[in-house]
């Protein structure tokens, strides 16, 4: 382990930048798990789906991946709405969500990943864009543009999401549905519809996060798996449903991962976020009713 100040600063900077990206990846889960209490462990699979859709459009039409993902977001929203409807009718209504609901998403995770393998193979795919390649240098600090751009857009995305959740009627209804469905009904708002909208938004963010992912690194179908634990670790650390909390937690995880990777080697990196998760869960206040 060679300790140098250069390495340290670079590691921290790249950790923060990656953390911004992680926040975008986790935002969807903050919605579905943090607020709606739906254990969608298939979320990373939808992100990979977003990466591949961005890839196809980029490879055939040459359109920028982030732009593509925003245009395709409504399609992902629709997918999310359909999935939630199936989930609600099959599991939430019957009170089966803790076993079969989780298994359902587990199955979706597999179906998505394996379908991508069958269709695209296991070769790594990447996209082309003018900001992939160049690196800015600030003294000894190297900042690759392909990480900066997703970082910035990600923060914008989260800010926009936070605005929607706190200012719009639908957004506030989403925050309310987590706490008091009966009150919502009394206001003539259908909580199921609200949850469907929220889950749709959650999957729509996956489209954009997927574009970020394939900009930052080449993607193949099993890449999503290392994000499962990461995403839930950040969601829990960040306070379950708080978007600002998610951002902070994401950067924390990004920094620790980056430091571990730089000084101990990249083969230990997957264990960091998962280890974080285990630690957080173990130290969390216990209690069947407590949140």
């Amino acid at each position: 382990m060679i300790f140098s100040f250069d390495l340290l600063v670079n590691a921290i900077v790249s950790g923060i930048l990656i953390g911004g990206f992680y926040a975008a990846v986790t935002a969807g889960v903050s919605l579905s798990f943090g607020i709606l209490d739906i254990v969608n462990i298939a979320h990373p699979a939808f992100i990979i789906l977003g990466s591949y859709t961005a890839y196809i459009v980029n490879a055939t039409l040459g359109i920028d991946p982030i732009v593509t993902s925003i245009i395709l977001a409504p399609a992902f929203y629709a997918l999310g709405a359909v999935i939630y409807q199936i989930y609600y009718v099959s599991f939430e209504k019957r009170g089966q969500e803790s076993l079969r609901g989780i298994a359902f998403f587990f199955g979706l995770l597999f179906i998505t990943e394996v379908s991508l393998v069958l269709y695209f193979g296991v070769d790594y795919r990447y996209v082309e864009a003018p900001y992939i390649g160049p690196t800015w240098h600030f003294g000894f600090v190297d900042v690759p543009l392909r990480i900066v751009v997703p970082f910035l857009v990600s923060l914008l995305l989260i800010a926009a999401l936070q605005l929607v959740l706190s200012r719009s009627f639908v957004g506030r209804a989403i925050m309310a549905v987590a706490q008091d469905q009966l009150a919502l009904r009394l206001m003539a708002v259908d909580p199921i519809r609200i949850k469907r909208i929220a889950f749709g938004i959650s999957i729509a963010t996956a489209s954009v996060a997927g574009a970020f992912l394939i900009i930052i690194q080449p993607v193949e179908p099993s890449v999503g798996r290392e994000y499962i634990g990461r995403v839930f670790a950040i969601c829990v650390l960040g306070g379950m449903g708080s978007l600002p909390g998610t951002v902070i937690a994401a950067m924390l995880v990004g920094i620790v991962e980056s430091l571990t990777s730089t000084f101990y080697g990249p083969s230990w990196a997957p264990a960091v976020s998962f280890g974080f998760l285990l630690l957080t869960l173990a130290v969390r206040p216990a209690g069947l009713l407590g949140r």
Partner: protein
Amino acid sequence: MRSDIFFLICLAASAALYAGAAALGNDYVFFAGYVVLQYVVLSTAWNILGGYCGYVNFGSAAFFALGAYSTVAMHKLHPLPIPFLVLIGGVVSGVVGLGMGYLTLRLRGAFFAIATLALAVVLQTLVVNWDYVGGSRGAYIVRPETLAPFGPYIRYLFTIMLLLAVGAVTVARLIERSRLGYGFATIRDDELAAEASGVPTLTLKLIATVISGALMGMAGAPFPYYIGFLQPSSAFGLDYAVNSIAMPLIGGTTSWVGPLIGAVLLGSLQQIATVTISSAVNLLIVGCLLVAFVIIAPNGIVGLVQRYVQHKPEDFVGRRKVETDAPEAVP
């Protein structure tokens, strides 16, 4: 039927199975059968925590791999006969299960499920970085060609797994019919009400986790001998995670019969399929079946059979039909 009689019947059936397999004259049956029996143990083990208690374990592969890697570690330290290795694998996995359970079982089921996922990755990372057991390069285990009185070594392995399967099923059935089984069911149904009725939920959940983990470790212990060359990617493989969840859910989670049916059916199908179609399509089918069953037939094949049997127009004499059209009582 008393458990010891059940156990004897199982042993008798197993002997018949072995004889039938040997009569076919092709050792491939034993190779394929080993995998199916392995899944019987894994599904039954998973179901003890998942089906009986309602706590989903995504880390079956981790417990399985722990068993396999403790065999590799022992092999380098001091080679032992496989039955001892099975016990060691069981103890190691059981202890890890206890530790993990103690950390995470106080939380809601969702958090436990996620924690098991995290555990699997952490363990895999640890193993990949541990050179003593071969790390990412893998570890060779030399196995003998034959072993008396079985003949080909694979028959010996098959027998071990067969006995493990009988053991696992007997244990599951024993639990089901005992006080423990009632306790597990209440944890699944309503943990709060269970506590209020005097059920020590944390203790029971820990017991379930230990038994489940230990059985999975025992299933993993002979694996290095089966496969000859053990790599983390095969020990921690995806198919173990999916199958140990899909098989009980498809077979039926409420009794020991479900995982057995699920493992035999799905396991056999997959063995046939790997010869004819790719393993990716294999997994796709399992994933689709899992989703389909979980939506359409939540009680699995066992549940479907029960429903079919109850709707038959003729009844056995004296058997009361359960009414299912009472008004919906829960607000």
